[in-house]
Every structure is written in structure tokens, then in C-alpha cells.
């Protein structure tokens, strides 16, 4: 009866996993940041019919929704935008495949086990160090072994397996010496204990494992929330398209579209596939793909790319390329390749290890050979050799970099700078060139009507009143400018928007038009301007300027004062870039640069020995961001650009980058000092250990003393 009961309860407990949940939806929520956002998202989703449960993860900025099969992720995105929260559809399959959460939890368990065992063994060791003799010492040693050996067998697995894998392919990695030290220390201690010896190093082996695991876990945690740039780019792509077939439109996944299919893109939607416009006219915002600030006009036969935003009118597109072959995907692949190339950067810690590891092993072998030759006692010689291995344990060396980067990371955070990559700090300290993107980085990405007095108040009022019906960026900014300078609205009748051209209406029985030069009959003019035509009067020019960020100039001057070269690489038109460069006093600029050219430009600078800090915000910058020595993006940047860069600047102040550079330089100095301290400590400890004076107590004291010195030195980062 009992067994029946427990069986049936087991089935019930197991049921929800495989049972009624039809649909697991993941949404990315880039804007959420606080407790109110969590409850807003969860309560609005919970009210949605068909949703069983919704759980926000603020660390990963995403929500997991369990729903029945009637609910689609698109409904939920619309529901959330209704309460003012931006949500992006995520591909559940990709997320499951790249879920790092399992790895993180496994590491955390190992950290916990190693820490638990290290503390307990340390307690037993205190008894031994304070002079336990004979049977008591042996008992304490055996209990230590009982706790330490299983704990090591479990917790040290990541190092042992990685070392094994490296040895199979005939490589030497940092895991090899760590594993050698752990195995030798544990094995030798076990032998000593069984022979009733005085010295056992169980506590040292566990402390070493614990410190190194903790370092790995913190490193993993820091990077878990930053997913790969390629994954984000795929998420930006519109996953669904409206296909027109035999006069009917149907919504289907982009994967179901074939070249030659006709697709309808409404105003405000992203274009799902590369293609050619066959019907309709509109304006296309391609600033994220090309850096051009001014929306481009699209009419019949215009070529459009996936990821561009359709602004004003409906377009029918004939598909040319789908999914894998779109420009967006090609860019994503380029970013992936550039990222693997950058991962080859060898950090100070790695370079120090490359020197330290062989040195320590040679010294240990020398000590063994020397003692065996002079005393002829194998056990004594082994003991000394292991003492050398343990007393030079890479704890101080292992702390030299992480302690500094933790302190510096805190200081940077208080100045609104987030570091995403562990080596970003070191790389930032070494830069000698800064390359800025223009649109959205040096400028706010918004237009401002530059009122230089050439436009009369009457014309201003007419234009602003026409613009009131349009969502075009130029219109929106003109309406705002009119409101700010107290212009009263003019009476316009029959206003209507002509997609791709402008707005027209009637004012005092005259036809008025505001829009593109060609449309109102003005001479075509490059640059950011629009024209107003009243009846038969000659067209009046409205000039727009991009607003340069207030802090951009200070930031650039700060970099120049440190002797760092400043450049602009922009995809925008010459005129627009020249104006901004001139305002900021930058002589070295390039305009009309394609995303691929931006990347190759960065590679070329690197080939000339320059270390480049790339600052950018758009999709067209992602390649350059990923291939630069170090890269930064403002928080207002597109998600993909933020993911591709090492540093994210929160808020709108670019000057933070200068301060960040100062902190990075100071941090680099502390790291080098820490290596000096570790070397000085080893210079004293190694000879003592080789001469046979080292005891487990001396090793424990020296280990903590050197680690504390290194940590305190790290606190001096300013």
C-alpha cells in the first residue's frame, strides 16, 4: 500500500513536465530594470487569456511564458507594448540550445562543495597546527582525508577533465599544472597519513580548488547575461512575413518564403527579406544598417534589405534572398568570425601563467632531484617537491588580476560604465586611437530644425501644421520646434501624407506642399533639408541639423589631451559628416563607409600596429565593434551593437569613456604591481621550501598573507 501511494504521488509530481503545457514562449525585454517592471510584465501577461504562467528573469532581461497553443508570441509582444514595455520575440529553440544556466549551476555546486570541505578541513587543521600528537593527529588527518578526497574528486572535475582533454591532443593548458598540483598534493597527503607522517596538505589542495573555482564561477556569471552578438542579430530580424498569393495575404514564417514571392510590408514594420519593391512608395529608415540618418525614399524597383524599417506607406516586395543569404545574416556571420579572432587576445594572467608554470615545475623537479641525491630518501624528496608546488600555488598570482578588475569594475560602474568582457579593462588601458561612429554616437541621432531666421513665422506655422499629421522624423522634430518657439498653428484643410514624398494640404485656397525637393519643384539638394511650397511661390528651404551630443566635444578633447588619435567612420553622407567633424574639431574622418568597409578599416589600423577603441551604436557598426581592439556602445545603441561591444556606457555622457580610460590605466598599473608582489613573495618562499623548511602551517600563512597584500593593493585603483 505504501509503495503504491508513493508511486502515484511520483506520477503526479512528474506530470506537469510532460503534461498540459503546449507552448513555451521566450520574450526579450531590453528595457526592464526594476521591481515595478517585473510586476507590470507579469501581471499583464497573467491576465492574457491562455497564459498559464509568466516569470521574468531580470538578470537575463527576459520572460518565460507557459501558455496553451492558442497564444502566439506576437500577441504577447502587442499586449506588452500596450502597457509601454518593449518586447522582442526570441526563438525558443536557440535559447534552449545556448542555455548557459545549467553550466552556471553545476559550477556553483562545485564552488559550494569545495568551500564547505575547505572550511571543515581548515578547522581540523587548526587542531593539528596547535600541536596535536600521535593518535589525535592521525585521527584528525584521517577525518580530513575523509572530507577532502570525495570533495576534491567532485569539485576538481572541471580542471581534471580539461587537463585530460588538453593532454590527449598534446597541448599544455593552465589546467594541467593545476591538476598536477591537486592530484599530487592529495595523493601524497594520503600516503603520508597512512604512514603516520606529520604533514598533510589537504587544506591547501581544497583552498586552491575553491579559489580557482570561485574565479571561474564569477567569470561565468559575468558573461552569462551577455549573449552572443549573432544570436541577437537573428532576433532583430522580422521572423514573420505577409505573403500575397492569388490576391490573398497570409502570415507565415520567413523560412516559408521563396525568392520571387510577393510580400506586403505595412508602415511601421521591419522588412523581413532582401528584395525589390514592386508596388507602393514609402520612406525607409536604414540608419541601423548603414548609418544614414536621413530616411531614404523607396519606390518601384528600389532595393531593400532585411532589417530596414518601413516608415510611412505600405510596400509590396518581391523577395530576392531569404534567411541565411540576407545581408543581415552575412553581417552576423562576419561578427561571429571577428569575435573568435578577438578571443585570441592573451590576458596578463595567461601570459604570467605561461612563464610561471614551467618555472615552478622545473624548480619542483630540481628540489626533488637535489634532496634524493643528497639524502637518498625518496619520501622526503617527494615531500619537499610537493611543498614547493603548493607554496608557489598560483593564489596570489590568480588573485592579481581578478581583485583589480573587481575593484575597477565597481569604480567604473559608479561612473555608468559596464564592462562585459573580462579582458576589456586591460585592452582599454592600451588604446592609442579612438574611432567614433557619427549617427547616434556623436550625435543624438535626432534632427533639429536649425532656425537661422531665413524662414518667416508664417511659413514656419504652415509647415508645422502640415507636419502635425505625419510620423516622419523630420515632421516630428519640426512640430516640436514650432511648439518650443511658440508658433501658432495655421489653418490647413485636407492635409494628407504622400508616402515617400511629403505632406500636402490647402491653406487659404492655395495648395501647400511640404517635403522632398523634387516633389515640390525645388532644385534637388543634398543634405538634410525639406521644402515648403505655397501655391505658385518659389519653394522655401527648411534646413535640419543633427544635434551633436553636449559631452562629445569634452570627451574628444580629453582623449586628444592624452595623445590619443580621434577619427570618425560614418555611413552617412559627406556633407553631414563634415559638419559634425568640423564642429568637434576632428580632421580625420570618412563618410559613406559600408559596414564591411568599417571592419576592414579597423583591421587595417590594427595591421599598422594601432590599438583601436571603436565607439558605435548601429547594426552597421557591429562588425567594426567586434573586430576592434576594444569597443564601446552607448546604452541607447541597438541591442546587437551593445552585445558586440566590450563596454556599455549608460546614460548619455560620453565623457564617462575618458574617466573609464583613466581608471583602466590605473588598474593596469596595479595589476603589474600585484605581479611584482607575487614574484617577491615567491622569491622568499621558494628557497625556503626547497631547503625543506616549509610546513603546511607555513604554507597556509604565506598563502593568505600574500593574497591579502595583493587584495589591499588592488583597492588603490582610482
Amino acid at each position, binding site marked *: 500500500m505504501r509503495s503504491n501511494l508513493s508511486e502515484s504521488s511520483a506520477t503526479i509530481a512528474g506530470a506537469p513536465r510532460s503534461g498540459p503545457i503546449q507552448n513555451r514562449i521566450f520574450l526579450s525585454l531590453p528595457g526592464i530594470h*526594476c*521591481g515595478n517592471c*517585473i*510586476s507590470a510584465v*507579469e*501581471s499583464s501577461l497573467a491576465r492574457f487569456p491562455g497564459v498559464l*504562467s509568466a*516569470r*521574468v*528573469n*531580470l*538578470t*537575463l532581461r527576459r520572460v518565460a511564458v507557459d501558455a496553451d497553443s492558442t497564444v502566439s508570441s506576437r500577441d504577447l509582444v502587442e499586449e506588452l507594448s500596450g502597457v509601454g514595455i518593449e518586447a522582442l520575440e526570441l526563438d525558443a529553440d536557440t535559447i534552449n540550445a545556448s542555455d548557459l*544556466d545549467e553550466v552556471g*549551476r553545476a559550477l*556553483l*555546486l562545485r564552488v*559550494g*562543495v569545495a568551500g*564547505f570541505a575547505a*572550511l*571543515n578541513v581548515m*578547522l*581540523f587543521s587548526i587542531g593539528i597546527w596547535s600541536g596535536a600528537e600521535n593518535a*589525535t593527529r592521525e*585521527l*584528525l588527518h584521517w*577525518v580530513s582525508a575523509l*572530507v577532502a578526497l570525495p570533495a576534491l574528486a567532485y569539485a576538481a572535475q572541471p580542471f581534471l577533465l580539461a587537463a585530460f582533454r588538453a593532454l590527449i591532443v598534446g597541448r599544455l593548458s593552465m589546467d594541467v599544472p593545476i591538476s598536477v598540483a591537486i592530484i599530487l598534493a592529495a595523493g601524497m597527503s594520503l600516503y603520508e597519513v597512512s604512514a603516520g607522517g606529520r604533514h598533510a596538505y589537504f587544506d591547501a589542495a581544497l583552498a586552491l580548488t575553491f579559489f580557482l573555482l570561485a574565479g571561474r564561477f564569477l567569470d561565468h556569471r559575468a558573461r552569462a547575461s551577455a549573449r552572443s552578438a549573432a544570436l541577437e542579430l537573428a532576433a532583430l530580424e522580422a521572423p514573420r512575413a505577409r505573403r500575397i498569393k492569388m490576391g490573398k495575404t497570409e502570415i507565415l514564417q520567413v523560412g516559408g518564403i521563396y525568392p520571387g514571392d510577393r510580400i506586403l510590408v505595412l508602415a511601421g514594420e521591419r522588412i523581413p527579406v532582401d528584395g525589390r519593391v514592386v508596388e507602393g512608395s514609402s520612406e525607409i529608415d536604414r540608419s541601423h544598417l548603414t548609418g544614414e540618418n536621413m530616411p531614404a525614399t523607396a519606390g518601384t524597383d528600389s532595393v531593400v534589405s532585411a532589417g530596414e524599417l518601413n516608415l510611412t506607406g505600405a510596400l509590396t516586395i518581391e523577395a530576392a534572398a531569404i534567411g541565411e543569404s540576407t545581408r543581415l545574416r552575412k553581417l552576423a556571420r562576419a561578427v561571429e568570425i571577428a569575435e573568435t579572432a578577438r578571443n585570441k587576445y592573451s590576458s596578463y594572467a595567461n601570459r604570467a601563467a605561461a612563464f610561471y608554470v614551467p618555472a615552478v615545475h622545473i624548480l619542483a623537479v630540481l628540489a626533488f632531484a637535489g634532496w634524493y641525491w643528497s639524502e637518498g630518501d625518496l619520501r622526503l624528496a617527494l615531500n619537499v617537491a610537493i611543498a614547493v608546488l603548493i607554496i608557489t600555488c598560483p593564489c596570489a598570482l590568480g588573485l592579481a588580476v581578478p581583485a583589480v578588475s573587481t575593484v575597477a569594475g565597481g569604480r567604473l560602474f559608479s561612473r555608468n560604465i559596464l564592462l562585459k568582457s573580462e579582458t576589456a579593462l586591460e585592452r582599454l588601458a592600451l588604446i592609442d586611437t579612438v574611432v567614433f561612429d557619427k549617427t547616434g554616437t556623436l550625435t543624438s541621432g535626432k534632427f533639429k530644425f536649425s532656425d537661422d531666421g531665413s524662414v518667416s513665422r508664417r511659413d514656419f506655422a504652415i509647415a508645422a501644421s502640415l507636419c502635425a499629421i505625419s510620423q516622419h522624423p523630420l515632421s516630428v522634430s519640426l512640430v516640436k520646434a514650432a511648439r518650443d518657439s511658440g508658433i501658432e498653428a495655421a489653418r490647413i484643410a485636407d492635409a494628407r501624407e504622400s508616402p515617400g514624398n511629403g505632406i500636402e494640404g490647402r491653406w487659404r485656397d492655395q495648395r501647400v506642399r511640404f517635403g522632398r525637393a523634387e516633389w515640390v519643384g525645388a532644385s534637388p539638394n543634398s543634405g538634410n533639408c525639406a521644402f515648403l511650397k505655397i501655391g505658385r511661390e518659389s519653394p522655401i528651404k527648411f534646413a535640419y541639423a543633427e544635434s551633436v551630443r553636449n559631452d562629445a566635444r569634452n570627451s574628444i578633447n580629453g582623449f586628444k589631451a592624452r595623445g590619443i588619435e580621434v577619427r570618425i567612420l560614418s555611413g552617412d553622407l559627406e556633407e553631414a559628416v563634415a559638419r559634425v567633424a568640423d564642429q568637434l574639431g576632428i580632421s580625420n574622418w570618412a563618410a559613406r563607409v559600408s559596414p564591411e568597409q568599417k571592419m576592414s578599416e579597423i583591421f587595417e589600423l590594427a595591421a599598422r600596429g594601432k590599438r583601436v577603441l571603436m565607439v558605435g551604436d548601429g547594426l552597421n557598426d557591429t562588425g567594426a565593434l567586434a573586430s576592434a581592439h576594444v569597443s564601446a556602445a552607448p546604452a541607447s545603441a541597438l541591442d546587437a551593437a551593445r552585445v558586440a561591444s566590450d563596454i556599455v556606457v549608460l546614460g548619455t555622457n560620453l565623457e564617462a569613456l575618458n574617466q573609464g580610460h583613466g581608471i583602466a590605466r590605473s588598474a593596469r598599473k596595479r595589476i603589474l604591481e600585484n605581479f611584482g608582489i607575487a614574484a617577491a613573495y615567491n622569491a622568499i618562499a621558494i628557497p625556503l621550501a626547497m631547503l625543506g623548511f616549509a610546513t603546511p602551517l607555513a604554507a597556509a600563512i604565506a598563502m593568505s598573507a600574500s593574497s591579502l597584500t595583493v587584495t589591499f593593493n588592488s583597492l588603490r585603483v582610482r
Partner: protein
Amino acid sequence: MDIVLLLIAATVMVGIIWLAAFVWAVRNKQFSDPKGDSFRILGSDYDDSPKK
């Protein structure tokens, strides 16, 4: 000296209880969203049972 045996047993027991609690917490995803949980504990939403 028998008391030493007792103390050692007690130490190991306390350690194992702590370890079991820790393993339970990690398996239960208690550490999967530290940032969100720090807000949730201050929130006014009442949970009948923790949401999964």
C-alpha cells in the same frame, strides 16, 4: 578524549546539513535571477506559492 570523536561527528553533521541545504537551493534555481529576486522581496505582489 571521547569527546573529540563526538565533536568531529557533530562538525561533519552540521557541515552536511548545510551542504544539503545548499544543493537543494541550487537545484531549485534559487540563484538563477539574483537581480530580480532582490527586487521581488521588496515588492507588494503576494504569492500564494512561489511561481516557477
